[in-house]
């Protein structure tokens, strides 16, 4: 980022110095509460993603049509994602400098962007397509790719807190 002359550092400094971050750091319970809700949202998100990915891999609830499984999981996935963003933002703001200088934060964010794009374009499309036209290979590739991407996000996320 520095090489192109564009830096997000001022933005991260602004987040860190905001009165909201100060409030987060000054109140004993605010950080844990936000983390707890983030983890519960993560569990729901993971479940709603996995039930579709397992179905894509041909090992999940195979008697239900793929599009149905995806239709029913998507609202939970989207709402869990909203909850993850809402609870993730205060965490990011109050620890902005730590996040900025953690390689795992950038690892997480890059995979997250990739995961979101993939999920709402290719994967969404795939789950809406008539299964007989998909063949045996692509759904499995998509399922494996999705699981790997989101595991990568979770691993990166966990490591931010451990190395600073």
């Amino acid at each position, binding site marked *: 980022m520095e090489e192109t002359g564009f830096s997000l550092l001022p933005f991260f400094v602004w987040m860190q110095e905001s009165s909201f971050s100060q409030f987060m750091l000054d109140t004993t319970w605010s950080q844990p509460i936000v983390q707890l809700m983030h983890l519960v949202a993560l*569990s729901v998100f993971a479940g709603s993603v996995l039930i579709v990915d*397992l179905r894509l891999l041909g090992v999940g*609830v195979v008697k239900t049509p793929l599009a149905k499984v995806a239709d029913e999981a998507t609202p939970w996935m989207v709402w869990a994602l909203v909850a993850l963003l809402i609870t993730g933002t205060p965490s990011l703001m109050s620890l902005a400098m730590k996040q900025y200088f953690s390689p795992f934060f950038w690892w997480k964010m890059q995979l997250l962007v990739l995961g979101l794009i993939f999920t709402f374009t290719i994967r969404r499309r795939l789950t809406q397509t008539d299964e007989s036209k998909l063949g045996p290979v692509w759904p499995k590739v998509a399922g494996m790719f999705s699981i790997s991407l989101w595991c990568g996000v979770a691993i990166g996320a966990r490591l931010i807190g451990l190395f600073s």
Partner: protein
Amino acid sequence: MLRALFETVEAFPSSVAIRESLNGYPILLTSHVIGMCVFAGLVMMMDFRLAGFGNRSTSITDVQSRLFPWQMVGLVISAISGLLLVYGQPMRFFPNFYFWTKNLLILLAGINIWYFHTKTYQTVEEWNTDPTPPFAARLAGIVSIVLWASIVMVGRMIAYPGLVPQWWLDLGLEG
């Protein structure tokens, strides 16, 4: 007695090895989170079906039997990593309020599963495809969601050993 057990384990060379390993803690903690995602995530997908909140096009026996093996994969990953985390630092966990609360909640979740499978689930054929299952099944689903969400949250709170009721600190378990 329990304290003596935890102290004995802490002195084991294998416990010391985990404690002093450079990558042991990050690897175990990360595995625990991945295991949690798979286990808690898929258990809640099954609970949503039972509670009538989601996955309503799939029959209950299908959700249960097709997700079960993967729930077990998640359980094995989180249980092994969790046990090793405790094994590596027993005396960090022994005085921890949230550690014991988490164990208690896991026990309650186990009782809920046992009760559901020995009683409510026996008549599943009668309501297998109902989008909204009968009250007893919905209740089991909701109780399970509440318990597992609490277990996830209480687990995270283990990292805040000081944010606990004063009476717990007064027990003087820190030693």
